């Protein structure tokens, strides 16, 4: 890893094969990132539901430990299960456990817990630091704030939109890792729902009927499936969650990648947008990297004020 397209192609081929058992030569699997872990977990779940036996042959010991820690083997039958002894240990990265959510109500607790766990993995951030007298914020607040924002928005977005258009059983998988050597956080939120194109199919912002066009529209401010829903309890979205999340990634010097259907787009700080076609993924995935040292400099107020059409509203009373 890392070739997300190849992994998705493998997943699709296996699920479509109608074999009763599948053997994957995993001897060269030395590293898997959060997005790959989510995709692999979806594969394991789907094979389990189809009662297909999966064998990961030749899995090296540290990778077997990782995947076992992530409970990858829980939802499918594994032939030739890797045998290992000894205590679990961390490898080069500091993984946070893979989570699967199927209800929007679970995000409110899951997102801040995940953000706090990630911050706890960062060696130079002490959770007991006191707030700065001037700003009222501690180092933990400065690092955790953008993570809270990103995780809350991505997780709630995934479950809200994935379950649209009849995909009531859609779920979202979240994985995250802190890399102490490069001081980067990577996180992924991947769902098996309706995907961006289906979600935005009637939206006027959709320039053409393609998965890439749908993702590009979704990144534009004020574009959402249900922005203009009728008044009442269901307000809909304002369509800026992904826009702001992307800006947090750019401001922190990282990247943000979206994939859905046969489309894949990636924005990196300092580079233009890449686009390509990949093997089809039913659902959507968001994969981000944030640089730890730049997290504290993310100015959410400035990001919001730079949204098109922003203007202070007369008559708001701030005290």
């Amino acid at each position, binding site marked *: 890893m890392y070739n997300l397209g190849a992994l998705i192609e493998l997943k699709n081929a296996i699920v479509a094969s109608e074999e009763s058992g599948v053997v994957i030569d995993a001897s060269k699997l030395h590293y898997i990132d959060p997005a790959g872990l989510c995709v692999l977990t979806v594969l394991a779940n789907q094979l389990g539901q189809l009662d297909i036996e999966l064998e990961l042959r030749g899995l090296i010991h540290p990778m077997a430990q990782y995947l076992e820690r992530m409970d990858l083997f829980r939802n499918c039958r594994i032939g030739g299960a890797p045998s290992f002894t000894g205590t679990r240990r961390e490898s080069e990265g500091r993984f946070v456990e893979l989570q699967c959510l199927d209800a*929007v*109500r679970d*995000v*409110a607790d899951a*997102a*801040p817990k995940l*953000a706090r766990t990630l911050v706890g993995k960062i060696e130079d951030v002490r959770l007991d630091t006191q707030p700065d007298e001037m700003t*009222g914020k501690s180092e933990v*607040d400065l690092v*955790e*704030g953008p993570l*809270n*924002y990103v*995780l*809350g*928005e991505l997780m*709630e977005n995934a479950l*809200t939109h994935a379950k649209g258009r009849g995909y009531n059983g859609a779920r979202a998988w979240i994985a995250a890792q802190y890399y102490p050597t490069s001081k980067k956080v990577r996180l992924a939120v991947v769902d098996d729902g309706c995907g961006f194109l289906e979600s935005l199919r009637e939206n006027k912002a959709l320039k053409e009927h393609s998965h890439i066009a749908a993702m590009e529209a979704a990144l534009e401010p*004020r574009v959402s499936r249900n922005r*203009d829903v009728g*008044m*009442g*309890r269901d*307000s809909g*979205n*304002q369509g*800026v*969650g992904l826009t*702001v999340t992307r800006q947090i990634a750019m401001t922190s010097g990282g990247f943000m990648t979206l994939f859905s259907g046969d489309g894949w787009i990636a924005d990196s700080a300092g580079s233009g947008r890449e686009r390509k076609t990949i093997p089809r993924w039913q659902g959507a995935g968001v994969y981000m990297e944030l640089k730890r040292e730049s997290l504290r400099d993310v*100015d*959410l*107020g*400035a990001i*919001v*004020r730079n*949204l098109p*059409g*922003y*203007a*202070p*509203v007369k*008559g*708001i*009373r*701030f*005290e």
Partner: protein
Amino acid sequence: MSLFEHAARERFLGTRFRALSLRDELERLLAIHDEVVLDFKGVETTQSFIDELIGVLVLERGPKIVERLVFKSCSDSMQSIINFVLGDRIEQYSSRHSAQH
């Protein structure tokens, strides 16, 4: 009347779902008080949360509801988020109602 007294220990409020119960409480307070203070001391939120909390009220009741709200101890980012949400939903309300006339 402070809306977030019972949520004070939550330093980050990030989801629309979380805002739903707080909006119910806000509406209850608006039914019995002319003015409600939303105290954001030590609290940060996402734009989605603020939209679900007060953006919905603007869409339902119109911009005048803002006159009955006081936003206290907001950080710079919170002020920006509140400005954005209210500005966007006020514009949407106005467009919707001018189109109907």
